[in-house]
């Protein structure tokens, strides 16, 4: 244990120190090779100009290198791989995409992904909006929001353990220790194995993501609600609008763009959902989604990088338009301020 701690400490120092070392070292080297306080003015000016030309690339260098290796190269490579066979040697054209189109498991994953897309973003945004409006009028609203927000800090795996415990199943007649089955049996129902119930199990997995992401929606929407001018609300109230009318006619239209941002952000997250399905069911009982299918093709049964890459491209193509829209939205907002 001690050795492990020391080893960990040493690697941490080495990794972080190496990074610091690069920036200090390279800048020091630059200042030394082209000194700004050279003997004569002419060479000092020339040195300063050289410094100004080189230094930005010292600053940018590591970032550009890492971005190229970890993002730009993989995108090109994945596109290339998706047109090749399992080992990446033989060009196969659109065969991987054609396979995907006719594959039952792929269709199931797409279907499940669409199911997630239809339910989770809508439910999170709706719950978030309701909670934001309700807590806005309470003196302990911030505490309430913190508690709703808390699951966002928990990993998907941790959340899966929490919810597996909620869904825990014991045979009929036994004492139920999962709270959901305990409630069901209390009201006279039969205990169920929730996560293997065909079709409906998807919804029990979605509940986990809704539980996690509602806090995100709440916080962002609450911040937007604060931005509605008090005058507007007061005027509506004087005109005799009830709370519901104020909500539909004034609050929702005023924060409409924020609602869309929340919705699309959660949509992107849902398109890439992986951990929850892996830890809860490992894609069994017809719960597979695209990211898990891709993972299975990459690492299980010898791996087929061509098919895995094709699935990755499908995810990318689905995510792309939403992300572009989101970034443009964010940039517009920045310009507005």
């Amino acid at each position, binding site marked *: 244990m001690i050795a492990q701690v020391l080893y960990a400490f040493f690697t941490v120092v080495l990794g972080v120190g190496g990074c610091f070392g690069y920036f200090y070292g390279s800048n020091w080297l630059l200042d030394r090779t082209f000194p700004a306080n050279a003997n004569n003015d002419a060479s000092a000016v020339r040195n300063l100009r050289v410094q100004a030309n080189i230094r930005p690339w010292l600053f940018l260098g590591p970032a550009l290198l890492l971005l190229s290796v970890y993002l730009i190269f993989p*995108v090109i*490579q994945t596109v290339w*791989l998706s047109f090749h066979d399992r080992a990446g040697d033989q060009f196969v054209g659109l065969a991987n995409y054609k396979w995907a189109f006719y594959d039952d498991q792929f269709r199931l994953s797409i279907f499940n992904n669409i199911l997630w897309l239809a339910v989770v973003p809508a439910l999170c945004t709706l719950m978030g909006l309701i909670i934001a409006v*309700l807590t*806005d009028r309470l003196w302990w609203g911030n505490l309430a929001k*913190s508690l709703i927000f808390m*699951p966002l800090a928990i990993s998907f795996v*941790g959340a899966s*353990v929490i919810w597996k415990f909620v869904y825990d199943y014991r045979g009929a007649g036994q004492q139920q220790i999962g709270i959901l089955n305990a409630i069901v049996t209390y009201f006279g129902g039969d205990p169920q194995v929730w996560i293997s119930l065909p079709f409906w199990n998807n919804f029990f997995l979605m509940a986990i993501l809704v539980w996690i992401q509602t806090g995100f929606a709440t916080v962002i929407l609450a911040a937007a609600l604060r931005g509605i001018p008090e005058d507007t609300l007061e005027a509506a109230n004087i005109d005799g609008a009830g709370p519901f009318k104020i909500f539909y006619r004034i609050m929702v239209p005023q924060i409409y763009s924020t609602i869309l941002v929340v919705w699309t952000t959660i949509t992107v997250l849902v398109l890439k959902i992986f951990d929850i399905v892996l830890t809860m069911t490992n894609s069994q009982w017809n719960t597979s989604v695209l990211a898990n299918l891709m993972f299975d093709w990459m690492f299980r049964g010898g791996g087929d990088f061509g098919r895995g890459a094709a699935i990755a491209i499908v995810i990318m193509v689905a995510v792309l338009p939403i992300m572009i829209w989101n970034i443009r939205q964010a940039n517009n907002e920045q310009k507005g301020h």
Partner: protein
Amino acid sequence: MLKRFSLEPSRIALNIAVLIIIALWTFPTAGLLISSLRDKNDIAASGWWTALSSADVAKKGRLKDKVDQVEKDGKFTISGNVFEGADGVSGKVSAFGTKVQAPGGNPAGTVATLDNGQTLVVNVDGSYVLTSPTKFTDEDSGGRVFYIASQPPRFTLENYQTVLFSEGIGRSFINSLTVTIPATIIPILIAAFAAYALAWMKLPFRGLIIAIIVGLLVVPLQMSLIPLLKLYNAAGTFMGVPSKTYLGVWLAHTGFGLPFAIYLLRSYIAGLPKDLIESAQIDGANDFKIFRRVVLPLCFPALASFAIFQFLWVWNDLLVAIVFLGSGPDQLVLTGKLNALLGSRGGNWEILTASAFVTIIVPLTVFFSLQRYFVRGLLAGSVKGG
């Protein structure tokens, strides 16, 4: 904002509604925490929601032997306490009996008449008096007694001891820290330098570089895995080193976190007052000095937002860790370990709940202590690709 317009009954309804929602949201986590502190037999025997109230347990014990009898007023009595010698059992007796068929046939404090004319009283505190008109003999003393004890809630840290020291969670915790700390600090440093260069330094293709970085925000993580895995394997073979190393995972997290980090920091640094940078330049400071002395201290809030975001992201990540790190005890991080435990210890809730709580305690602490920065990062971070 509508405070002054609302009526009293609606306020009460509002409070109740919010309370119900909060109960719904906190219940699952509460179940995890409470269960992790319970005895493993208790977890399997009853729901965690019963753990806070006293539980009724049926127990049996043996009354004292004839050697302890006392003669008084022509009667023979044996007195003692049912909790003596019953280890780990304490609490209050609600009922007792002498037959296995009716372990709680007599309420505590009442007199039970036994078959042979003896009488037995067991009080709430567990003390009992067995009375007989005749002297106790071997046959009619030292008999069995059954009782229903209501036990106060019992909590233990035993589960944590088990998972930390014998299930490998302690080791994984250190592995997680080994991954997370550099994977948080390295991208901050690299991104801050790059963001400064893109915001304030003269360089060709600046607009193009910014556009590409913003464009990279859209790349889903899954896209990168296959090519990078192939690259790592090739690099590992080429250099004769293992392909799954901490360095590899740090760089992967750094690469995936950079677009968002640069995007966030650049807009913040570009927003700093121009005079500040220019006056420093006039004073003869070069860009490295300006960055260190002026810019870095000023953009602390943005750095903190990103740091928290990245820390939570890396700590909670499963996919990158299982792809780029090995599954041996020296490299398995907490999320991976927990995932493995879910497979191998599926029914052992004392192990799972305690392990899960160890994995979530760090992000929860970070979250509650630095919530302000976290929310700010979140507001900016709705564009993170990851």
